[in-house]
């Protein structure tokens, strides 16, 4: 039986599709073997033109005349490269009398690296390309750009379309082919970069939603079929059953898109290296890790010994710290004498803590006055919270004491995140001085307090950094029962101690532990009592740990005895007496231990040096354990059919498109791509040819380019589309070949001129009797302005995203880390789901979360506001105006320059007059930059924003 007949049978038998085959089922049929109709007009002799002319003639319509060369060059430049032609190129073409002049221009544009950039942008719309996940957790896809750059290269290299698509679905399985190589992994980024509900806690639902998104994407992009419609039930209109859906879904269920499905799931990626290289690196990395573990264990043991000594001296540290604190200056930040900052106790601070933070734009500073107890060197410590680095400059009496202070981050913005950091070493004079902190950037850390401690404290046998820590703790720790008790007895007037002891005696709790029996008579003797408490607390802590299972031994300890717990907490809870960073204590480790540590350190360094550099990562998919899926009733993963559906291709094609058998131990993605591009499978070729037509004309022959099903657009030109699809196949799936054919057709070269007759009989231009005016897409508007202003950075590839991979681009505090101030082509600007660049959103590129088959071309007020008031437009207009000032000396010459730069032509007398009127009137009305505004007016004009 003929394939067409087989299709008819298949359609009537298709499960859930017991409907008569309709004329709209043309898309499922094999390609028609069509020859172009006979030429009736010598000028309309190319195959495309013969198809188009036949239909026009049949409707009694005349084609539009051919557009002039200037118009054609601008059209071809924007359509192929997304950039305007240079005025010189226009002039050269107009001066070239040879008949193939335009053909050579088309070849030049097809060979330009900007061709790949612009065509990639079209494909990226289909592939819902993004630099962030969007949906619930907007984490950065910092490696997505590798996929984007590969798409650019693929178009520039004219990679055959069948391989281009196959690599995106099964490239990891084709990587052994040298023609594919490591790019095979990069290409599967296509399947990987969908928006995923990463914090979905029902992980099976997450996996199935991911498969659904991939099936919908592949179906619409490659086949022009809305396969996703069959997730819950048989497709309502097209011959795709729910069984078909789960047969295909099994292929993707046997493919993994995640490393793990933790609380926030982790999408899959891999190194850009072959498997052997990755294995070697992992082995070296394992050896390094083991060396590190040995080093860490030895370091921990050394520090544990040190902990014993420190705890044994903790009472003396408390005393020494108290003495030092008494000689220091401690100041709450909010007491600043002058500041641009806002004192806040409710939003970033809390009931106990008032912090200073940025409130309004401009210089960010705070200034205090202070007097040290004595003249001499002092260390400045500042307590603050900062989730991102916000360095400040320190000035004392107007002189810089430190340039880059407070740069360290503390893990958050709230009081709980506050830490003390040393900011500067400075000279205290003993009389009134000023301290000023000034931010380098637009924001400050959340400042809580600062302290100036003399550096000359004599620690004796004690460790100086621990004494320093103790001083900070004594001065600033609030709400600590033991410290409060200690301060009440010791602070201020030491001579008053005995009297205070008497007053506190007999009150139980801490008083009982510290004052009963022989009452202490001095701070030192009280410190001994406290020391006793510390020693007992440490012993109790050790006892608790000893009673635990090994794996929970290091978990935090709380002591039941409130007195001992107070002692433990003062030592180790939060910013305690002995919670010092390891680096602070390392210099005080004994020499023998140090030598041992040094040796381990060297071993670790050697092991680390032996680890090969990690190749960059790329988002991709990989094979998983094969798992076939049962039907999910109503698409619900909790209501399953009893048996799994074997993996298979769409059944409607089964009788005439051979389906390679799927091996039991492979996902079947490779076989799926073989089936997609089998000679008998016409749909993929039709969809591909239609998309090129769509890019060339603004509308496809099928105007629903991602839906060739029954609810899709029914084309006028099915024969032409089939001819184009066959031509694409016959030329090894070369897209550039088809481009050239289309651009050299008379059909494409028609002008926008439409007769009233044509407008009436063919208002939508379905018969292609003229060129349909297009509005420039967002990227071309921005890139065009940069190119014309002479400010465009034409470098290719790379990433402009500044966020680390898997870090939040926009977070739950609504910070947005993406920046758009580059002068690179728009293709390279970050594409951020959930917080799209406002310019993109205004100009109809609003949602990169979903497959976008065609950009709308709206004309809206927000676009006008953007063009009128955005700084970007102002900057480009200024640059252009300045070029005009430089090249010509009189108004006439400058006006002519602007028209040539923007429109590649001379201004008409009317335009000259209008420009001159503006130049006279603008300044009178208060505009200081009339040339800038004139240049801007040209950028806002319809002639710039549209392609004729």
């Amino acid at each position, binding site marked *: 039986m003929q394939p067409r007949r087989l299709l008819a049978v298949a359609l009537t038998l298709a499960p859930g599709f017991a409907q008569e085959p309709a004329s709209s089922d043309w898309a499922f049929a094999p390609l028609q073997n069509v020859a172009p109709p006979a030429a009736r007009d010598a000028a309309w002799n190319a195959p495309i033109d013969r198809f188009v002319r036949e239909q026009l003639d049949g409707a009694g319509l005349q084609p539009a005349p051919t557009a002039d060369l200037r118009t054609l060059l601008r059209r071809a430049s924007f359509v192929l490269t997304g950039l305007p032609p240079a005025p010189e190129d226009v002039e050269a073409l107009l001066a070239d009398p040879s008949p193939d002049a335009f053909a050579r221009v088309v070849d030049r544009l097809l060979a330009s690296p900007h061709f790949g950039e612009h065509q990639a942008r079209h494909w990226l719309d289909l592939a819902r390309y993004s630099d962030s996940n969007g*949906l619930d957790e907007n984490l950065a896809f910092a490696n997505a750009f590798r996929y984007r750059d590969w798409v650019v290269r693929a178009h520039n290299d004219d990679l055959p379309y069948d391989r281009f698509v196959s690599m995106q679905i099964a490239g990891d399985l084709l990587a052994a082919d040298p023609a594919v190589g490591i790019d095979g992994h990069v290409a599967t980024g296509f399947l990987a970069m969908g928006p995923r509900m990463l914090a979905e806690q029902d992980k099976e639902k997450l996996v199935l939603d991911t498969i659904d998104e991939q099936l919908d994407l592949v179906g619409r992009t490659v086949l022009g079929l809305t396969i996703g419609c069959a997730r819950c039930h048989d497709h309502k209109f097209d011959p795709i059953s729910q069984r078909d859906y789960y047969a295909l879904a099994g292929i993707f269920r046997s493919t993994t898109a995640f490393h793990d499905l933790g609380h926030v799931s982790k999408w899959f990626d891999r190194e850009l290296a072959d498997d052997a290289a990755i294995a070697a690196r992992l082995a070296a990395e394992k050896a390094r890790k083991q060396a590190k573990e040995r080093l860490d264990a030895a370091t921990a043991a050394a520090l544990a010994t040190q902990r014993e000594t420190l705890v044994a001296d903790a009472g003396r540290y408390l005393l020494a710290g108290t003495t030092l604190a008494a000689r220091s200056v401690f100041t709450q930040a909010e007491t600043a004498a002058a500041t641009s900052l806002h004192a806040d106790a409710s939003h970033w601070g809390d009931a106990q803590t008032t912090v200073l933070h940025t409130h309004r734009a401009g210089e960010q500073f705070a200034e205090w006055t202070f007097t040290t107890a004595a003249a001499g060197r002092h260390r400045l410590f500042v307590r603050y919270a900062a989730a991102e680095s916000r360095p400040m400059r320190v000035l004392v009496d107007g002189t810089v004491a430190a340039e880059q202070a407070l740069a360290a981050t503390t893990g958050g913005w709230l009081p709980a995140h506050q830490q003390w950091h040393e900011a500067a070493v400075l000279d205290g004079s003993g009389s009134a001085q000023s301290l000023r902190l000034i931010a380098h950037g637009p924001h400050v850390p959340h400042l809580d307090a600062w302290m100036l401690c003399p550096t000359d404290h004599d620690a004796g046998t004690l460790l100086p950094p621990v004494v320093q820590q103790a001083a900070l703790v004594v001065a600033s720790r609030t709400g600590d029962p033991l410290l409060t008790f200690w301060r009440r007895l010791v602070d201020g007037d030491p001579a008053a101690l005995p009297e205070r002891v008497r007053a506190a005696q007999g009150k139980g709790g801490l008083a009982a532990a510290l004052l009963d029996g022989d009452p202490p008579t001095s701070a030192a003797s009280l410190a001994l009592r406290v020391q006793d408490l510390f020693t007992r607390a440490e012993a109790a802590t050790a006892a608790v740990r000893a009673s635990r299972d090994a794996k929970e031994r290091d978990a935090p300890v709380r002591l039941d005895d409130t007195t001992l717990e107070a002692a433990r907490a003062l030592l180790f809870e939060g910013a305690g007496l002995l919670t010092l960073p390891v680096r602070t204590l390392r210099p005080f480790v004994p020499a023998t231990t140090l030598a041992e540590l040094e040796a381990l350190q060297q071993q670790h360094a050697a092991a680390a040096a032996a680890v090969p550099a990690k190749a960059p990562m790329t988002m991709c998919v990989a094979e998983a354990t094969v798992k076939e899926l049962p039907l999910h009733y109503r698409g619900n993963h909790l209501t399953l059919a009893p048996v799994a559906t074997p993996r298979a291709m769409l059944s409607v094609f089964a009788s005439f498109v051979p389906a390679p058998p799927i091996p039991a131990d492979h996902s079947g993605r490779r076989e799926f791509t073989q089936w997609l591009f089998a000679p008998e499978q016409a749909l993929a070729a039709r969809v591909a040819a239609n998309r090129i037509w769509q890019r060339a004309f603004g509308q496809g022959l099928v105007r629903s380019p991602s839906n060739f099903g029954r609810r899709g657009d029914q084309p006028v030109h099915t024969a032409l589309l089939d001819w184009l699809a066959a031509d694409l196949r016959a030329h090894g799936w070369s897209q550039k070949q088809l481009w050239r054919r289309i651009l050299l057709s008379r059909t494409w070269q028609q002008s926008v001129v439409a007769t009233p007759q044509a407008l009436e009989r063919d208002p939508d231009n379905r018969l292609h009797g003229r060129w349909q005016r297009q509005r420039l897409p967002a990227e071309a508007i921005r890139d065009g302005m940069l190119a014309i202003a002479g400010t465009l950075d034409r470098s290719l590839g790379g990433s402009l995203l500044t966020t680390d991979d898997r870090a939040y681009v926009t977070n739950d505090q609504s910070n947005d880390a993406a920046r758009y101030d580059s002068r690179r082509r728009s293709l390279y600007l970050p594409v951020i789901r959930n917080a799209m660049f406002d310019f993109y959103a205004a100009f109809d590129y609003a949602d990169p979360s979903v497959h976008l088959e065609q950009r709308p071309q709206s*004309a809206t007020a927000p676009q006008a506001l953007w063009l009128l008031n955005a700084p970007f437009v102002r900057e480009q207009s200024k640059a252009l105006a300045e070029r005009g000032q430089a090249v010509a000396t009189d108004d006439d010459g400058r006006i002519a320059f602007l028209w040539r730069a923007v429109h590649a032509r001379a201004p008409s007398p009317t335009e000259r007059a209008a420009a001159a009127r503006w130049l006279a009137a603008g300044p009178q009305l208060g505009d200081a930059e009339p040339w800038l505004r004139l240049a801007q007016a040209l950028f806002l004009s319809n002639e710039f924003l549209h392609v004729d």
Partner: protein
Amino acid sequence: MSTDACGHPSPRPQLSRRDLLRNSACGFGALALGDLLAGDDLLPRQPHFAPRAKRIVFLFMHGGPSQVDTFDYKPLLQRDHGKPLPFAKPRVTFAETGNLMGSPFRWARHGRSGQWSSELFPHVASCADQICFLKGLHGSNDAHGGALLKVHTGSDTFVRPSIGSWALYGLGSESRNLPGFVTICPTLGHGGVNNWSSAFLPAVYQGTPLGNASVPSDQAAVRHLTAGLPPAAQRAQLDLIQELNREHAAQRSGDSVLDARVHALELAFRMQMEAPSVLDLGNENERTQKLYGLDDPTTANFGRQCLMARRLLEAGVRFVQCTHSYKWDQHSNLEVDHRKNAREVDLPIAGLLTDLQQRGLLEDTLVWWGGEFGRTPTSEGGSGRDHNPHAFTHFLAGGGVRAGFSYGITDDYGYYTVDERMHVHDLHATILHLLGIDHERLVYRHAGRDFRLTDVEGKVARAILA
């Protein structure tokens, strides 16, 4: 028989899709061009039936306020504090929780209707007789991102149009110079733009953000609304552009695409002149400012949002959202932080209700309050509560809602809904109903099938209609 979102046979929807892709004249979220462009998709449209509310304000409490600490009083939870939950926890939970934790707040009945409220909301409680509490709400996602998208778009699986976009698509805009769907200080996290995007609906229906949650509301503004030129000079520059455009059109066959752009420029200019005055709260007298708590730093931020909302609604905006951003997520320290959060919003919300009432606007304005989910009656770490999409409380007030009423019953501890249940889809269906829209007939054809806000679900809660 009605429309199934998968496109089962249905009567032709009254509000059918129109092809805006090419020549629509506007977009700023939405600007009704009215007299400028006939056939514009933002022209006010007749709803399916007489609406009870003509406009709506959503006061969104991001993070998930606890129902059992605000309006859903559970005496047995107080009694059984510290005991184990006597029934099973859900199959999927976000975090681990322990035993029952009683509400740390005092509870009392309020108003003639005797509705329960905890001490957290004294001012809202004083409006109890105007409010209809919905205590049987439930959703399907227990993570913030999914739950936010669910509440705003009806889907926690895919990117779908926001309820504000659907409302605007269904009803058009009453304002000539303002966006039809405005969201004040919205969050960029947890779905971000997708919570106010029009997704596959034409861009004219997308929400217009004023600032975002990282800026205080006194800095919330429309982007690029400020001209760098004096008005007269910009007018002259516009005249120049339009002259160039006329010259351009005269040399070619002009078409509606070019006309639309000419009009868009004019509209932008007008909006630039008029929109800032609507957002200028200095035009309000001191008494009104005080009513919204603008005189108190604790309440000023959210108070300004509420007052801006009233001014926008008054000026004809169809859908306004205020967001109290990501504050209500008390996995720990609930007693202190819920108190603090409530203090920031309680007075402004009551102020808005009172102000709308005094101006006669409450009658046909729907006020909608709530978060993305509730919280567990069981304790997380001793002082907090985990996310709970299985039962939570929202309230409605104003246009067409049964005042002084409570609908929805949860179990003895407030973990699950038991009776008078409302899924988020049911809430959406009910809200659209109040706006005069049949949620089953508000459809849009996309990717081969008809879509609805409520997917294939949604039941109007008729019991709460006045």
